[in-house]
Each structure stands twice: as structure tokens, then as C-alpha cells.
């Protein structure tokens, strides 16, 4: 770690991983509710568990992105962070607001929560992923403003690089797009239309810039490839991401009541959305192959390559499977969507956050890389989580195909619940894979606590000597 203020990232990373564990816990609860319908009823109904699962995902990824930015920007700009104190204050504000919101979801009925938090002043609640009470939403905006101010001031007084510019554009875009969560028109079509400006333009737009910037940073640091080469790749990736992603929003407009030409635009542009993800995979592998040095942090390099592959599979391949309008006509809102959602979020965003944590945390803790033993454990976590997530995806895809077959693509459609009974076996298998994922997460957490300072120093010295 080159600058003292980079260490504020530690708080953010720890919170991110803690919330990640919460997300997985609620995922398991829901996985069980799929097969044992009244599990934990009435304490935690399915809709509440789902809301907690998805909201925790978003919040922990945001913590991860913020931590990544606080670590990366000072190093890229070659200056201390403008105000580490502000970063710490905002951290606690965000964490407490987030925790209170989750507690609110769990303790009070949603309608009562809406009433308590003044939703009738400006109704914004009740929409998937944007369920947060008004005050939480305002809190998020304030935290985002403070965060962008802090980073912006740092960038302004330091060295300007392509990586920080791309990251800043991504983060500003993230904040700007979130503002559409305050716009909630009465007309359901228009509501959905702009709702996607938050949801889609986040994950298939500006978040890809954040992903690209973090990936580029880790690759520069671990492979020693020339900055110019890395930047050229980054430019091409983000150009493709925006060209395909912005109009790709159309693949959500097929059946919500928007004009029919969206079926053309959505199909064509989103069919190209796998390209930037494919380029990211190529990017990671090419840079690692052309590496000019062997960085002792093998685990971070593994996460960087892993995020490329899994993002391409999850976002690219599984997204393409059901993005064309004639296909989506049958698959819309089935388990196919769920399978894509799981692998895409894990591959693209969960893994990039773990990638930067894997690279940054040892440095924050005062070593170049963790000991060999610790890294081996971390990689066990990597494989357990990644394979479990692939299995979850495959089982959900199986469930989805059967669901489409029996309920949609047939002359004699069966009722929804009858079909759900018939595909129950897939839900059991998915649940078992989910337990595997939780185990992988446990192993990953464990890797932070093994290996002493001396072991790390010895292993790193050995690696350096071998590299020479």
C-alpha cells in the first residue's frame, strides 16, 4: 500500500463481505422455502426473504465498489485521499442506514414500514430492488454525493489516468441512474420503462465501466503489462459495453406495453452484449499470458481471470439464451431468468469485488501477498463458490426449460403450481448447491485468518527470488 489513506478501504471490504454472508444466508432460506413452502412462516415470508436477499446483494456490491474506489483512486492519482475522515463517516452512515433498512424489512410488515417512513409524501417503494424506504434512498444519494466529492477532489489534485476516468464515469453514472428510483409514475408502463433505467443501465451499463476499471487496475499491478496496452483494451471494452448496453435496455421493453420497435432494438443490441464480456475474458487471459513479472499474489490473478470467464458465461451466454424477443416470449420471468441472474451477478460483480479484495487486503494488512497456505485456502473458496454457482445455474436452467416446456411452449399448458411440483427435484439440487456455496464462502473467510506475518514474508521473499 503506497498511501496511508488507502486503508479506509478495509472497513468497506469487511462490511461488504459481512453483508455478502447475510445475502447467502437469506438465499438458503428462500431455497428451502421453494421446497418447504411454510419454512419460517410467518416470521420471514418468501417475499421478505427475497427482498433482503436482493437488497443485500446490491448494498454489499456498493460497499465493495466504494472500497475498491477508495483503494484504487489514491494509488492511481499518486496522492492521499482528499478526506479519509469523510470516507469513514460516510461508511458508518451507509452501514447503519443499510442495517436499519434490513431490520425494518424483517421486523415490520412492508406496508407499515412504508407508512412509518413517509412513503405517502413521495411514493417510491414497492418496486423490485428499489424497495428501500424514502429516507434510505435519500441517505444513499447523500452518501453517493459525499463519496463522489471525496474521490473527485482526489482525482482533481492528482495524476489523471484512464482507469480513474473510467471508474469515475462509472460511479457518477451509478449515482445519476439511481435518481430514477425517485420517479414513480402512476402509469405502470412508464413506471417499468424508467425502472429499467436504474436496474438495466446499472448492471449492463455503468457497472461494466466500474468492473472494467477495477479489472484493469488489478491486471496492471499483477502482470506489469504496459499501461498503454491495458488502457487500449479498456477503451475498447467500455465502448462496446455502452454501444450494446444502452440500447440493449430494449430487451426489457418487449412485453411491458412499450412500442413494438423495441423488439427489434432490444433483440439486436442485446444480442451483441456478450461481446464486451468476451473481450474482458480475452483481456484478462492475454494480459496474464504477456505478464512481465510473476506477482506473489496468485489468488488475485485467479480472481481476475475467473471474473472474466464467469461474467462471460453468466452475463454473456446465459443472457443471450433468452434475450431474443421470440425466445423471450416463452422464457420471460421463468427460472431461466433466475439462472442468468445468479451467474451474471456472481461472475461479473461478486467476483470482481472479491478480486480487488484479494489484491488489496494483503497490502492493507502490510504484506505484498498472503502466505502460500492462506492463498491455497482462498483458492479452495474460489473453486467451491464458483462450481457451486455453476451448479445452481445449471439446475435452475433445467428447471426453467421444463417450466417453459410444460407451462408455456405447449398446446396443453399445465397450471403454474402443478409445474412447480413437477420440477421440485431441481429446487432440491439447487438448495444443495447453495449449501456448497455457503461452505465455499466459509472457506474463503477462513483464508483471511490463517498464515502468520512471518510465513507471508517468507513465502513472498521466496516467490520474488524465484521470479528473478
Amino acid at each position, binding site marked *: 500500500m503506497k498511501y496511508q489513506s488507502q486503508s479506509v478501504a478495509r472497513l468497506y471490504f469487511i462490511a461488504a463481505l459481512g453483508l455478502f454472508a447475510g445475502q447467502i444466508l437469506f438465499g438458503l432460506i428462500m431455497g428451502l422455502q421453494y421446497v418447504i413452502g411454510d419454512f419460517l412462516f410467518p416470521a420471514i415470508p418468501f417475499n421478505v426473504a427475497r427482498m433482503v436477499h436482493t437488497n443485500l446483494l446490491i448494498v454489499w456490491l456498493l460497499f465493495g465498489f466504494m472500497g475498491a474506489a477508495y483503494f484504487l483512486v489514491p494509488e492511481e492519482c499518486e496522492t492521499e485521499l482528499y478526506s479519509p475522515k469523510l470516507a469513514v463517516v460516510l461508511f458508518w452512515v451507509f452501514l447503519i442506514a443499510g442495517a436499519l433498512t434490513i431490520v425494518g424489512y424483517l421486523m415490520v410488515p412492508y406496508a407499515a414500514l412504508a407508512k412509518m417512513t413517509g412513503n405517502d409524501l413521495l411514493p417510491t417503494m414497492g418496486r423490485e430492488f428499489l424497495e428501500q424506504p424514502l429516507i434510505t434512498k435519500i441517505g444513499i444519494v447523500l452518501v453517493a454525493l459525499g463519496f463522489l466529492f471525496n474521490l473527485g477532489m482526489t482525482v482533481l489534485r492528482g495524476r489523471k489516468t484512464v482507469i480513474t476516468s473510467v471508474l469515475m464515469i462509472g460511479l457518477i453514472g451509478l449515482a445519476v441512474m439511481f435518481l430514477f428510483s425517485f420517479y414513480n409514475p402512476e402509469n405502470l408502463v412508464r413506471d417499468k420503462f424508467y425502472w429499467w433505467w436504474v436496474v438495466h443501465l446499472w448492471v449492463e451499463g455503468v457497472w461494466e465501466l466500474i468492473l472494467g476499471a477495477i479489472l484493469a487496475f488489478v491486471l496492471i499491478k499483477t502482470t506489469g503489462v504496459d499501461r498503454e496496452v491495458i488502457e487500449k483494451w479498456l477503451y*475498447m471494452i467500455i*465502448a*462496446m459495453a455502452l*454501444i450494446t448496453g444502452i440500447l440493449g435496455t430494449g430487451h426489457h421493453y418487449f412485453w411491458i406495453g412499450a*412500442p*413494438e*420497435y423495441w423488439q*427489434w*432494438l432490444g*433483440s*439486436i*443490441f442485446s*444480442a*451483441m452484449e456478450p*461481446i464486451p464480456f468476451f473481450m474482458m475474458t480475452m483481456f484478462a487471459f492475454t494480459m496474464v499470458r504477456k505478464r512481465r513479472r510473476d506477482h506473489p499474489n496468485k489468488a488475485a490473478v485467479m480472481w481476475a481471470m475467473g471474473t472474466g470467464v464467469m461474467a462471460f458465461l453468466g452475463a454473456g451466454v446465459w443472457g443471450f439464451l433468452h434475450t431474443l424477443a421470440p425466445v423471450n416470449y416463452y422464457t420471460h420471468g421463468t427460472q431461466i431468468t433466475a439462472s442468468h441472474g445468479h451467474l451474471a451477478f456472481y461472475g461479473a460483480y461478486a467476483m470482481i469485488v472479491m478480486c480487488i479484495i484479494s489484491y488489496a487486503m494483503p497490502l492493507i494488512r502490510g504484506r505484498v501477498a498472503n502466505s502460500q497456505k492462506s492463498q491455497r485456502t482462498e483458492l479452495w473458496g474460489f473453486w467451491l463458490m464458483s462450481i457451486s454457482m455453476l451448479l445452481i445455474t445449471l439446475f435452475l436452467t433445467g428447471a426453467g426449460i421444463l417450466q417453459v416446456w410444460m407451462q408455456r411452449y405447449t398446446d396443453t399448458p399445465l397450471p403454474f403450481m402443478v409445474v412447480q411440483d413437477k420440477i421440485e427435484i431441481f429446487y432440491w439440487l439447487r438448495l444443495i448447491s447453495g449449501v456448497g456455496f455457503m461452505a465455499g464462502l466459509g472457506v474463503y473467510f477462513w483464508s483471511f485468518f490463517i498464515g502468520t506475518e512471518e510465513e507471508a514474508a517468507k513465502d513472498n521473499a521466496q516467490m520474488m527470488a524465484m521470479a528473478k
Partner: protein
Amino acid sequence: MWLFILAELSVFALFFLLFSALRRYDPETFNAGQQLLHPVAGLVNTLVLLTSSGCVAEAIVRLRQHRPGALGWWLLSIPVGALYIPIKLWEYKQLVAAGHDLDSNAFFTGYFLLTGFHLLHVVLGLVILLFVALRIKQGAYRQGQISGAESSACYWHMVDLVWVILFPLIYVIH
């Protein structure tokens, strides 16, 4: 630049495929729609784009061989290419006046989206041409480093390549 062109061509290729596939489903609507288009305007626009592209090619040859006249040829390509825009807009005006728009039917959705996207590319191409003309005037390519100009020329050729496929596909083939 080549990668960018490849991406652009892929988008248009997907559009062409979709258009052709839909025509197979409903040939009557597509033939009826085609009757309403103005093939002469389309032909004129084809010639406009090809001529403009020719000027750019001539300018590139001169730049490469350090012969005079590169700037003149390059500058000529801009007004010639720009002629495309009023002709296209006149066509749109005719069709909209006759009550056809993006939402009328599959043929017109395809027609307006495809030609509309192409029109945006023409506009972008002209902006690029203008920018390179300024660079030529500043003498930026005198050292023999002309890859910037060549890339822009490639882009402009791509724009008329797309039109050369689009024109027969939408206006001519039954």
C-alpha cells in the same frame, strides 16, 4: 478501428437478417411497403455516398504519396456526402405525410430503424470527415503518419458499404 467497424457491421448484419427473416413471414406487407418507397431517391443517395467515398479515397492516395490536392479532394467529399441528409429527410417527410411511421407495420419499423441508424452513421461520418479535414489543413499528416486519416476513410467506406447492401435489400429486391 477495425474492431469498431466489425462491431458496427455486426449490428447492421443482424438488422438485415431480422428484416429478411420477417419478410419471409409476411411477404405481402413487405412488398406493399416497398412500393411506397422512392427508388430514385435511393439511387441518387447511393451515387452521392459512392462519389463522396471516391473523393476520400483519392485524398488518401495523395496523402500517402505526398502529392498536392489531398485537402481539396477531402473537402469535396463533405458537401457531396452531406447531400445525402436532405434527400433522406425528404423521403421521410413524404412517408410520414402519407401516414407511415415507425409503428405502422413490420416493414416500416424495419425501414425507419435501419435507415435511421444509417443516417446517424452518415452524420457521425461527416463529423469525422470534418475533423480530419482540419487536421490535414494543420499539416498533421505530413510526417507520413496517416493512420488517423486512413481509419476515418475506412469508417466512411463502411457507411456506404452498409448503404450498398441496404438499398437493394429494402428498395429493390422483391
